[in-house]
Every structure is written in structure tokens, then in C-alpha cells.
């Protein structure tokens, strides 16, 4: 009898542990897998910045937390704070797009230089003085070849 209870308790606890771990595995995947996701929107870096500077609320409704594909000219490549960041030109000198590149796409940056036109896919997070894209991957490289 006690043995049965012991086995039952053991089974119950293992079931609990199992279900918790399954829950974590399922819900703990990358929230948006950028590489596999088809971008919902494709536009130029200038027009993305323009729509945010014109009407931030509207632009947030259209782009925030969505995978967007942006084509634009590289203003700066930065490795500040151990991050790999591409800054794409916006429609004015003071506003740009800050693209935080996924670590596994870091190597691709080495072939790029300022002034190159590239296409990037990432999750749009919103706007401060610049538009911010996270989890970015390079989708094609129109280097000057």
C-alpha cells in the first residue's frame, strides 16, 4: 500500500516536472524567429524613418513588433558594447535606423563598408530619435560588385 502511494507520488511529481519543462521549452523559443519569418513589410530605410518622424503613433501601429525588411545605405558600422550594429541612413541627417545584428550574422559585416546598399530583416521595436530594429539578419548583400 505504502509502496503504491510512493510510486504514485513519484509519478505525480515527475509528471509535474515534465509538464513544467515542456511548458518552458515550448514557450521559450525565440519569440520571433526572424530568419524563418517572411517579412510583413518591405520598404526603404528612408521611408521607414520618414513615417516614424511624421507620425510616431501611426508608425508604431504599422511596424512595431513586426518583422520588416529594409533596404538602405550604410551610414555606420559599430561594434560598441560588444554588439554588432549597422546604422542605415534615414531621410534626414539626424535620424537613422539602428539595426542590432544577430551574433551568428556578425561575420557578414566584415565584407561591408559605409555607403554600401544592403537589405536587412529585423523586428521593429519603435522610435526614439532613430528607428530601432533588433534580431537583424542580412538578407542580401548588394556590395559594390
Amino acid at each position, binding site marked *: 500500500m505504502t509502496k503504491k502511494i510512493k510510486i504514485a507520488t513519484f509519478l505525480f511529481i515527475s509528471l509535474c516536472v515534465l509538464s513544467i519543462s515542456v511548458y518552458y521549452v515550448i514557450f521559450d523559443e525565440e519569440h520571433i524567429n526572424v530568419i524563418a519569418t517572411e517579412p510583413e513589410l518591405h520598404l526603404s530605410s528612408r521611408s521607414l524613418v520618414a513615417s516614424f518622424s511624421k507620425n510616431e503613433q501611426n508608425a508604431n501601429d504599422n511596424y512595431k513588433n513586426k518583422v520588416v525588411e529594409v533596404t538602405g545605405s550604410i551610414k555606420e558600422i559599430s561594434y560598441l558594447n560588444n554588439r554588432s550594429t549597422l546604422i542605415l541612413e534615414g531621410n534626414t541627417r539626424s535620424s537613422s535606423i539602428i539595426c542590432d545584428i544577430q551574433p551568428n550574422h556578425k561575420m557578414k559585416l566584415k565584407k561591408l563598408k559605409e555607403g554600401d546598399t544592403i537589405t536587412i530583416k529585423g523586428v521593429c521595436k519603435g522610435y526614439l530619435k532613430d528607428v*530601432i530594429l533588433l534580431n537583424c539578419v542580412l538578407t542580401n548583400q548588394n556590395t559594390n560588385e
Partner: protein
Amino acid sequence: MNKILIQLFFLLNFVPSDSISEQVITRQGQVSFFSYTSVENIEAKNNQVLSIIDLSKQEIAISMLMNAFVFKKSLMHEHFNESYIESDLYPKATFKGNFIDFDPNIEGSQTKFVKGTLTIRNISKEIEIKTNIEKIDGKFIITGDFELTVKDFEIKIPPILRPNIAKVISVTFRFEYQPYEE
């Protein structure tokens, strides 16, 4: 005579250019926060924090997107944005303040206080933060850390998750500024 002329030339050229760049900016400031409990440690980083300092007025302004904090686990990211911070309703956190007795002309390192208003979830708190200011070749780097009480910002944590989240969150920051050209 010639030497004096050359020195004069340099003085005239460099002194004014130093005082022209009165504002400095960073678009890639780093803010991290940590929550340590016996159950789990939670850490998040935001690498796209905007900050501008007006050196002549000794004013500093900081703004960040709450949904741009990156967590190790996406479940934490989800809870943070949807339940605690409600980043759809309150997308930004800001800080506006003044340095106390800060001399932007001193090269090297100095420790100063910044007094100002921190706003998270539309709730404003007056805080005073000790910062380390470093000036190397005319470039400013500001670092520091401070603590925030979760309760102060009316963040509701469900009882079942209360042991997982510290009551006091430690925050660290690092801002590397560049001259600001509008």
C-alpha cells in the same frame, strides 16, 4: 616669434572648437538590470538607449524603449512587457536631470551626482545617482549603477511569481557620447 605665432594659431583654432560642441549624444547607450533571488536570476540589457548631455547647462536626458530589453529567456521578456511594464501602454522610460558641480573641462575621471526625475510607466520618481564621468580626448563616457524598488512603480506581480522577482532591482548603465551635430 614664429613659435609664438604658431602657438597663437593653435590656441585660436582649438579653444573655440572645443566650446562649440556643447551637446553630446549617444544612440547606443547600454542599460542593464538585474534581479537576484534564491529562485532565479533575471538579467536584461538594452543597447539602444538614447542620451543627450548639454555640457554648458549640465543637463542630461535619457530615453529608452522598454520592449528593446533583451532577456535570456523569452518568457521573461513576455512577462516583463505584457504584465509588469505594460510596454504597449508605456513604451518608454525616461530620465531628465542635472549634474551637480560637474566640470566638463576636466580631462580624466571624476565622480559626480546626477539629480533628476526617472519616469517608468508614467510614474515619476526623484532620484540621485552617483556616476563616474570619464573624459578621454574630448569624448565622454558615463557609467554607474543604482537601485530601484519594484513597488515604487506600481508593478503588479502575481503571488505565485513573487519569490522569483527581487523587491529591489539593480540597474547599471554605460553611455559613450559623441559630439552632437543636428
